């Protein structure tokens, strides 16, 4: 089966070729053939991935690294890079859910994009290209091939975000995503160059992961830190962290399945994957890890607080993605790499689910995205409602569902590694998450419908091609967490053991930097007992419940209060008054400041400062361009003068510098 690994990325590539070159004709002849090609390409590669995965499981843990070299790709003197794939636990875990969730999204798209006449084939071409890039990214066994995929997903996201290009805003959002990503890529490339050069000094002219990591200990610590931080900047762009997350909320402009694809299974997870893949490097640089942890926690908090006030259903989900990614980076930053990957996996299930549900709602509501014009969808779209509820419960970390295990794992590891402050941020964010996610649920599915008459008349449950993926994903969101039940709950944390061979800290793999970290952990002297772990777990569950309760009070209960007051609780004015007082207090001490703060964060920091800096830079370049071009007067002799000026410059330099 390992021999067929090359087929996994090649199948989507074939899909791209078929649909890309002949799509127009295929679509004209038989529209369903287009999605048959695209879906079967991805489905087959998912199937192959499963087979490969099973075969990998047959191997003993220490042998679980199989490399498949296709051909010599780039050779520059001593420097060699191959087009080669690597099968190991990490790449398999990633590849499994990338192809799996990707496949489901493909199927969902059949129903969702059915109206896109004339662009149908184009959409599926892009989607397959996306899968091809992402598979290359996770399967590559070297930095360069990975970077090809890394760029590829950026490019595809650009194409897909701007898919509804009739509206220039969408095109602009696509461009924003692309440019932001390029800024990150630029840092990434510089880091890569730095790594290659310094490894070259030790005679290692390779970008192969295994080789690089096994020689990493030869690098000076300063360089490692620099490389790690530069790589991390690249990851902040791809995985939407402070300060480069700004593209992601705008990326909502794309068709909803695309949002699901970008947010859940692919693209944004590539940063997490990369850091985990390079965990050996990162463990050599405590500073870089610290930076990652802090940035992750702050991103989680910032994004969650912004999500509180958003009314656009997809925007809420977008910020929640940013926030969840923050969690993952927090996990990576405290050295819990497998916990990060675990959360990536569970998150891919429920975030894909949530987006697809949101898409389903929009589909039913004539593409309405504003939650203020939704409501009461519970009865009209029961499947969507139920699945979305499961997804929401999973994301807020309701006990027993997928998100609970993975999020708790991260929080626990954060606490156990001594980052109490970061842990507090994480737990608080969990509360916020519960609040805004349930706010979304309540505003969308509860109360009366606030959509216009004509729209209301047409509300319908989505077609089978859409609901089936929802159900599958809901099931995964419900049970997906059981691959990593922690010891404290009687599980064996299978995913952590499975990933162990990839981690630098695995048995017998302790390297110089890792030892340092281990020592530090020992000095931290945090060895909390099981009791503490249970306590913390309960605490976070409690906070989640508070969040849900608050949302319920404010978005379901309070709204119906006048009716209730008049009919049932007419004798209990006092109590009601008190209740009202409590609500007001909530409003005063919690909700209103939060509301304001989040408005401030959104409008002030997000829009004004970060977007402002980016746009400001663009404007400065624009101005200087406008100014500089006026030099170009069109008169030949002015050009001759500029030539003389150049000669004079050279002359001055020669006279004063070269001739001492």
């Amino acid at each position, binding site marked *: 089966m390992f021999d067929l690994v090359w087929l996994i990325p090649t199948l989507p590539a074939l899909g791209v070729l078929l649909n890309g070159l002949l799509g127009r004709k295929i679509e004209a002849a038989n529209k369903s053939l287009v999605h048959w090609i695209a879906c079967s390409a991805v489905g087959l590669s998912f199937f192959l991935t499963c087979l490969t995965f099973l075969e990998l499981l047959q191997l003993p843990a220490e042998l679980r690294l199989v490399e498949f070299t296709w051909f010599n790709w780039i050779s520059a003197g001593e420097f060699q890079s191959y087009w080669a794939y690597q099968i190991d636990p990490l790449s398999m875990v990633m590849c499994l859910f990338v192809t799996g969730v990707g496949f489901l999204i493909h199927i969902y798209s059949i129903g969702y994009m059915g109206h896109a006449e004339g662009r149908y084939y184009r959409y599926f071409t892009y989607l397959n290209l996306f899968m091809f890039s992402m598979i290359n990214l996770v399967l590559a066994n070297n930095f360069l091939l990975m970077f090809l995929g890394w760029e590829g997903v950026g490019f595809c996201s650009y194409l897909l975000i701007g898919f509804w290009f009739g509206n220039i805003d969408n095109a602009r959002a696509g461009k924003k995503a692309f440019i932001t990503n390029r800024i990150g890529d630029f840092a990434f490339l510089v880091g890569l160059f730095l790594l290659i050069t310094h490894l070259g000094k030790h005679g290692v002219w390779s970008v192969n992961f295994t080789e690089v990591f096994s020689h990493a200990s030869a690098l000076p610590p300063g360089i490692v830190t620099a490389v790690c931080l530069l790589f991390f900047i690249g990851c902040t762009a791809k995985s939407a962290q402070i300060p480069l997350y700004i593209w992601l909320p705008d990326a909502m402009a794309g068709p909803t399945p695309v949002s699901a694809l970008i947010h859940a299974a692919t693209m944004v997870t590539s940063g997490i994957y990369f850091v985990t893949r390079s965990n050996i490097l990162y463990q050599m640089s405590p500073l870089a890890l610290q930076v990652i942890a802090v940035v992750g926690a702050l991103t989680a908090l910032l994004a969650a607080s912004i999500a509180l006030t958003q009314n656009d259903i997809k925007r809420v989900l977008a910020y929640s993605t940013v926030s969840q990614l923050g969690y993952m980076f927090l996990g990576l930053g405290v050295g819990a790499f497998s916990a990060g990957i675990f959360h990536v996996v569970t998150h891919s299930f429920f975030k894909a689910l949530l987006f697809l549900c949101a898409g389903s709602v929009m589909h039913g509501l004539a593409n309405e995205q504003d939650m203020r014009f939704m409501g009461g969808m519970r009865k009209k779209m029961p499947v969507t409602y139920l699945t979305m509820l499961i997804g929401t419960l999973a994301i807020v970390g309701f006990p027993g569902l997928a998100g609970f295990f993975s999020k708790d794992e991260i929080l626990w590891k954060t606490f156990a590694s001594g980052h109490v402050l970061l842990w507090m941020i994480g737990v608080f964010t969990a509360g916020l998450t519960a609040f805004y996610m349930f706010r979304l649920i309540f505003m969308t599915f509860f109360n009366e419908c606030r959509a216009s008459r004509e729209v209301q008349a047409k509300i319908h449950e989505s077609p089978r091609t859409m609901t089936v993926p929802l159900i599958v994903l809901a099931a995964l969101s419900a049970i997906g967490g059981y691959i990593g039940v922690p010891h404290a709950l009687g599980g064996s944390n299978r995913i952590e053991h499975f990933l162990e061979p990839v981690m630098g800290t695995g048995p017998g793999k302790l390297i110089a930097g890792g030892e340092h970290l281990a020592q530090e952990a020992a000095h931290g002297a945090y060895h909390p007992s099981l009791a503490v772990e249970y306590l913390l777990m309960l605490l976070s569950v409690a906070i989640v419940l508070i969040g849900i309760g608050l949302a319920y009070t404010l978005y379901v209960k309070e709204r119906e209060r006048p009716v209730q007051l008049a009919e049932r609780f007419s004798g209990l004015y006092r109590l009601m008054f008190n209740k009202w007082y409590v609500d007001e207090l909530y409003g005063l001490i919690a909700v209103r400041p939060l509301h304001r703060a989040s408005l401030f964060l959104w409008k002030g920091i997000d829009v004004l400062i970060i977007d402002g800096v980016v746009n400001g830079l663009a404007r400065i370049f624009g101005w200087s361009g406008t100014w500089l071009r006026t030099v170009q007067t069109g008169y030949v*002799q002015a050009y001759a003068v500029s030539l003389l000026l150049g000669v004079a410059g050279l*002359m001055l330099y020669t006279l004063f510098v070269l001739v001492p």
Partner: protein
Amino acid sequence: MLESMLLYLAAALTLVTSVMVAVTRNTVHSALWMVASCFLLAVVFLFLRLQFMAALQVIIYAGAVMMFIIFAIMMLNLRVNPGRIQLRSTKTAGLVLVLFLFPALLLLLGMGRGIAALQGQVSLRALEQFGEVPLLANVMFSDYLLPFELVSILLTVGVIGAVALAKKRKD
């Protein structure tokens, strides 16, 4: 001594005529000054004992190129310059730059004079033969064969180009 005096005179006259080319308003006069300048430069070449080059200078520049230019001036009826020399700010800047570059380059040239340039211990006999045609002709068809042939292509291109630009289209 006399030769030095004559050299100085020729050099000075070359400069004067060249300046006149650059400042005369009337285009035809300017061109005539240019012819004079070419002749005088040929005279300067003579002082280098390069008789053949001097002859070429007269034949090609003064004879061919300048006649060409004067012919063009006549044809375009441009005897009087279309406008007086106005010093726009960029042009003033250009003049200032030239006034800076000129002494600067001379200064630079004076620093640590070129090595090969100083090795010029030439025997009198070689000196006299040097300017003669056979010596040059000899190398022209051996060492310099390729650039020589390329120059012939270049002249062809010149003809093609001039014709292509100046002719009126058939259709």
